[in-house]
């Protein structure tokens, strides 16, 4: 499966229609049906009050002021006051309900995307840029939030008031009413014609924002190289290019977003012109009065004014649809690492790992292996040696099912590795990565990451556990011991220290197979000896797979494999060294 997300819309398929995307938008509010209904009712109530108040006021004027019966005024004032209070309260609740609905939808949507990110396999992250992903999760969902927070409310008001006023106009004077509403049809057609275009322009602008975020993320993380190679100009130039792209795309989307408002205004004026001419025509023929015509203008205004407000809402809708499209792209991806039923199960297998006719290639890139076969016995120590780029890390990644082989089978303890659940699999495999990664938090939190068994222990108990596993010496150099704080992308601890923490993390999980992928490359050789002793004290059943360039780390291996676009068994250390020294690098 190709996990590369689109970052430019040129490759985009244009077969999506509007109602489908609106359907998607409304799918999100499914769970909020009751609240939305409540808010809708409150909007109705508010609209009715807004329609009733002018009638009451004109009655009050007619009865109390024109006829000078001022005493009756207080009844009107009383009624109006109650209506205003109702409107205040219902307005409050309507805003709060809809605002909360928007916030909750945003909350759920962010959770859903993040959850999806956690489900997706490693290949997804290798194929997409961190900055772009962050932009999708944050900026794009925020665009949706704007829709729910601002536009959604108005959506209802507009629908309620236009339908109400429209019906009223047709009832009062059917012919004139229909003619006055005719331009509204034009609005519908124009909106429909423009919407796709507007949405696409918004999509492009969001994409350029995503690209810019990716660039910022990369430059910030690589800042020290930019600095010492004195390429701040490069940094500035790259950024300015992306900034300019974003600027252009945003101007385009802004201009297209703003087209609705003037068009709606023009159409509304057209409606007034029609009413004016046709109205006067009717008056000439004695079918209408001047008073009614003036009244009718008010209705035309009441009908088209909210529609104009709808225009600005509509561009928000288009932006959020574009955002939703980018988000859906992630949500639609499926992990290709499914758990399947095992065909054959070998009980008490002698081997912990078997590769059977395994071929592998990355989704983007050259083939790494063709048809490799080998097996690792339980409790033994294996070493993988070979030139850089020969495929050692890839072999190890396949053992841990970070990827699935393109063809062939990998057997973990007698069962296809694909038949294990995530839980079962990760419990059995300890993998210390070439590039250690630590999360923001304390050293203890990092060591216990993903380790439910020890999570409950207090600091003292935890130190005792470290002691029992001979790991205590390793953390004595940290300023505040296991409570030392770590921030993920700072240099407050060294690469070697990170490797030590990663080492402790893996050992404490008591894995059946422990893979060390150059796990000690940046650790001094004295400490490395210490680590070696710890490894040697692991239970006899633990299989160890060691990838290293430093030959001393692998001299005690039971078997050495030479990996170079394939895998060969090297008889002993000397043979392995010879192979390493003589064979040509294939990469």
């Amino acid at each position: 499966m190709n996990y590369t997300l689109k970052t430019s819309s040129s490759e985009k398929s244009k077969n999506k229609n509007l109602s489908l995307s609106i359907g998607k938008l409304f799918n999100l509010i499914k769970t909020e049906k009751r609240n939305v209904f409540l808010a809708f009712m409150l909007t109705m109530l508010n609209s009715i009050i807004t329609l009733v108040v002018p009638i009451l006021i004109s009655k009050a004027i007619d009865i109390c002021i024109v006829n000078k019966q001022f005493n009756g005024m207080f009844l009107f004032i009383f009624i109006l006051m109650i209506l205003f209070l109702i409107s205040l309260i219902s307005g409050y609740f309507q805003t709060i309900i809809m605002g909360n609905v928007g916030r909750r939808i945003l909350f759920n949507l962010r959770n859903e995307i993040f959850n999806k990110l956690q489900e997706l396999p490693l290949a997804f992250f290798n194929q997409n840029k961190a900055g772009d992903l962050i932009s999708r999760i944050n900026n794009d969902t925020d665009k949706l939030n704007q829709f729910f927070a601002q536009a959604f409310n108005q959506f209802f008001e507009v629908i309620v008031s236009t339908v109400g006023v429209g019906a009223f106009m047709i009832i009062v004077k059917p012919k004139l009413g229909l003619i006055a509403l005719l331009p509204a049809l034009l609005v519908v057609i124009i909106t429909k014609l423009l919407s796709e275009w507007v949405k696409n322009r918004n999509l492009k602008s969001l994409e350029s924002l995503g690209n810019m975020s990716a660039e910022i993320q990369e430059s910030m993380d690589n800042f020290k190289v930019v600095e010492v190679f004195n390429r701040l100009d490069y940094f500035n130039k790259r950024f300015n290019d992306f900034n300019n792209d974003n600027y252009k795309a945003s101007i385009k989307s802004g201009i297209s977003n703003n087209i609705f408002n003037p068009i709606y205004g023009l159409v509304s004026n057209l409606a007034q012109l029609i009413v004016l001419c046709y109205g006067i025509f009717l008056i000439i023929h004695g079918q209408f009065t001047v008073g009614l015509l003036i009244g009718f203008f008010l209705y035309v205004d009441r009908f088209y004014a909210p529609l104009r407000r709808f225009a600005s809402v509509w561009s928000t809708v288009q932006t959020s649809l574009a955002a939703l499209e980018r988000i859906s792209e992630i949500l639609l991806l499926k992990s290709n690492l499914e758990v399947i039923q095992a065909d054959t199960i070998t009980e008490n297998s002698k081997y912990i790992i078997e590769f059977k006719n395994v071929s592998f290639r990355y989704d983007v890139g050259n083939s790494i292996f063709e048809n490799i076969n080998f097996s690792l016995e339980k409790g033994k120590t294996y070493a993988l040696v070979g030139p850089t780029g020969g495929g050692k890390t890839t072999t190890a990644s396949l053992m841990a099912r970070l990827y699935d082989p393109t063809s062939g089978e990998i057997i973990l303890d007698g069962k296809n590795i694909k038949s294990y659940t995530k839980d079962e699999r990760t419990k059995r495999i300890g993998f210390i990565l070439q590039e250690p990664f630590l999360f923001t938090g304390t050293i203890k939190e990092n060591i216990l990451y993903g380790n439910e068994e020890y999570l409950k222990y207090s600091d003292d108990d935890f130190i005792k556990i470290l002691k029992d596993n001979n790991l205590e010496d390793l953390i004595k150099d940290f300023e505040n011991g296991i409570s030392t704080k770590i921030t993920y992308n700072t240099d407050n601890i060294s690469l070697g220290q990170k490797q030590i923490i990663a080492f402790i993390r893996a050992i404490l999980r008591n894995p059946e197979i422990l893979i060390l992928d150059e796990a000690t490359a940046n650790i001094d050789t004295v400490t490395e000896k210490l680590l070696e002793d710890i490894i040697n004290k692991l239970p006899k059943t633990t299989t160890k797979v060691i990838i290293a360039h430093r030959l001393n780390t692998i001299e005690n291996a039971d078997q050495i494999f030479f990996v170079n676009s394939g895998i060969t068994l090297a008889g002993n250390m000397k043979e392995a060294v010879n192979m390493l020294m003589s064979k040509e690098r294939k990469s």
Partner: protein
Amino acid sequence: MKISKKQNLNIFGLIKLYVPLVAPLIILTILSNGLNLFIPKIISKSIDSYGVGGFNVLNIVIEFSTVSIGVFVLGYLQSILQTYVSEKVAKDLRTKLIEKISKKEYSFIQKISSSKILTNLTADVDSVKIFISQAISSMVSSVFLIFGVGIILFLMDWKLALSIIGVVPITITIFFLIFGKIKRLFKKAQEAIDWLNKVINESILGSAIIRLLNGQQQEYLKFLEANKEAKDIGLSIVKLFASLIPFMGFMVNIATLVILVFGGHFVVLGHMSIGDFSAFNNYLLILIFPVVMLGFISNMIAQAGASYSRICEILDSEDILQWGAKEFDFSDNIELNNISLRIDNKEILKNISFKINKNSKTAIIGPTAAGKTQLFYLLSGLIRPTGGEIRYDGISVYDYNKASFYKQIGFVFQDSIIFNITVRENIAFSNNINEQDLYKAIDTAELKDFIDSLENKLDTVITERGSNLSGGQKQRITLARALAINPKILFLDDFTARIDNKTEQKILENIKKNYPNITLISITQKISPIKDYDQIILLMEGDILMIGKHEDLLAKSSEYVQIYNSQKSINNYELHS
């Protein structure tokens, strides 16, 4: 100084910088709004003209269409201009931010974290942009209408006008009370976004280990916590707005009642004509929209204000980076005199002194966390010592012209940093690398075969974080990058950690052959390649234990012997091969 800073923090201060663009925008807004007022006039005129029998359809249609199209054109021009202004402001702000950041030292970036910078450059700039594009013209037209109508009302009947305007101070007070709270909340909201960014960021960068440790649930819980915070802040904001906006509508309604009671009373007493009374009512209707609008705009102003002050925190921070103007031409030595370094109250390096001569080879060896990499950062000028001075040719690093300093020194960092650009651009990363130097660097780093195996050779684009390369390939590319500038000094930090012995040996020989006069400073774990070095500095817990040649150290330093013994077996194999 202080005053100018305050102005800078105010979002309206930002507008001042764009007067030539904002002024036409305001004029266009007023024009298109003003022109719109002609339409009721045309309608009333035509109805009147019908009354006197002079109704001319064609004239009316022409007049009406002209004004409508005029409004349309002005309106669209206004919106184009407002898009242009807001995007320009956004672009300029980003450029300013980046310029500022690029003047910062490495430690600054580390401190404020890349996730915050990302929010500053995207979400924060965005809310300022929304403010400019939507708030200015709405505000102008709202204020214009409120004042205009206010003046008209006063001219008509000042007593009644006063009683209506009486509601204004109440509105304003409540408005500002809520507004202050909202602004704080918006700032917190943006901080929550920083937090979200950080969690997302870590979950992306740590995606491999998360999958290996089955930590997905744990990541999700972290995200949930941040997201919940964002939601809670969002809900508090909604609550405040839910009270603000309906309240403003309510105040307008109260004004209606005031007119009805007092105005009605005046009419009944004969102090006011019924025509004036209805006009009062109509003008009040005109007032409603701008008042409600102001409520909405206040949302934007609050959000943009919060974001802008976050941006200003960076823009107003002091530049610490000062480099001198002296041309650097390495000719003599590097000297460290009593250098010490403290980070967060932790002593990293204590009174380090040593000297590196031109054309010599120096190794820095020592256990994990001895302070080797920090020493490397000090030598590179990336961070500054808390005590002492590092001198190149007797002159402090920061007295040199930065460009000329970095032009002569090649750096290879421990963490192989690779850019998402082509292999060629990654290697010829510095300016003005000629082809000859490029190929010399590629050959020296033993990259030729690798590059030849790539589909587009040197023009192959490397994925972000070099995820399609092996650890050793990345390290060799970073070496080639450092060599391509033809450096006089080469700094290597644990460079050979991920490179197999055969390649390592070849590379070291290549360096000796292709860059014969290079001054080499190498942080390393392996003793065998540094046996013939001019000096080996043994560093432990921030202290220099000993400086000398391999033989000296072997004879006098037990710690060195311990390291040496731990590597003996390698040496055996390497000797045989």
